[in-house]
């Protein structure tokens, strides 16, 4: 199977991860998510000894809407997940990235390279990576790619 040669490096998204301040409200986070089409936001740390946090659409649905709270009054600090689930080995095989996600029950993993913020992977990145690998393999075999 072709996905054996796929590594974390080939699927990680290195463009800027949208961020949101700790003191912003949940409503601001929702607006930002919808505007960017990106359903997880990074919460920057205050100083070097602090940890990064993350807030996702699931945090908002389960911790704000389900509890009947007013999204304009709840702050990010109360609902974010902290610290992040991180991976540092860029040559990790794709299946272990998926396993790390499944085991920790998160949909976004942040990737650090030598202590610096490098990028992030979501379950969508993994599937896109596998899809592209599958298509490449079929093209190499000279088989016309037929969709179903």
């Amino acid at each position, binding site marked *: 199977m072709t996905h054996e040669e796929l590594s974390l490096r080939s699927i990680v998204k290195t463009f800027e991860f949208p961020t949101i301040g700790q003191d912003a409200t949940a409503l601001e986070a929702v607006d930002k998510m*919808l505007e960017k089409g990106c*359903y997880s936001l990074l919460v920057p740390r205050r100083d070097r000894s602090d940890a990064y946090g993350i807030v996702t659409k699931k945090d908002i649905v389960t911790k704000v*809407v389900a509890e009947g709270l007013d999204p304009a009054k709840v702050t990010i600090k109360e609902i974010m997940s902290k610290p992040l689930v991180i991976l540092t080995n860029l040559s990790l095989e794709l*299946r272990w990235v998926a*396993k790390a996600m499944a085991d920790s029950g998160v949909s976004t993993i942040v990737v650090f390279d030598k202590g610096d913020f490098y990028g992030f992977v979501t379950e969508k990145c993994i*599937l*896109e990576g*596998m899809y592209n690998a599958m298509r490449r393999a079929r093209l190499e075999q000279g088989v016309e790619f037929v*969709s179903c």
Partner: protein
Amino acid sequence: MELRDIINSGKPVRISPDATVGDALVSMMENKTDYLLVDRKTPNDAYGILTRWDIVSGPVAHGEDLTAVSVLDCARKPLVVLNNLSLDERRVARKMDAENASKIAVFDKEDFVGFVSDIDILKAISKAAKGGAR
């Protein structure tokens, strides 16, 4: 806001229960969707749903060959269903939390109306805040 206002009535993309996960992946990517409705085989069967998360946490995480695994082995079946169209958005969010699902099928009596996803809830609260403030 009520469930009928936030529901996404677009037609979901379907997949046969006998297809492989590889086919499902192709169909998901080509239709740019993040879930597929798994058809039932007989009228007594239940519908199922296959999401990105099911593929990633099942066959991909276990290192299985996607073209050898059948959709039925990793789809969620039966669906999480709601049939009260005037339900408050808060109860919908509660249901998602309780069932650990991100998409809920909505039926009006016997008829399938559509799916409501966590993104639809976010859109609803954003809209409610804008409409309520001014």
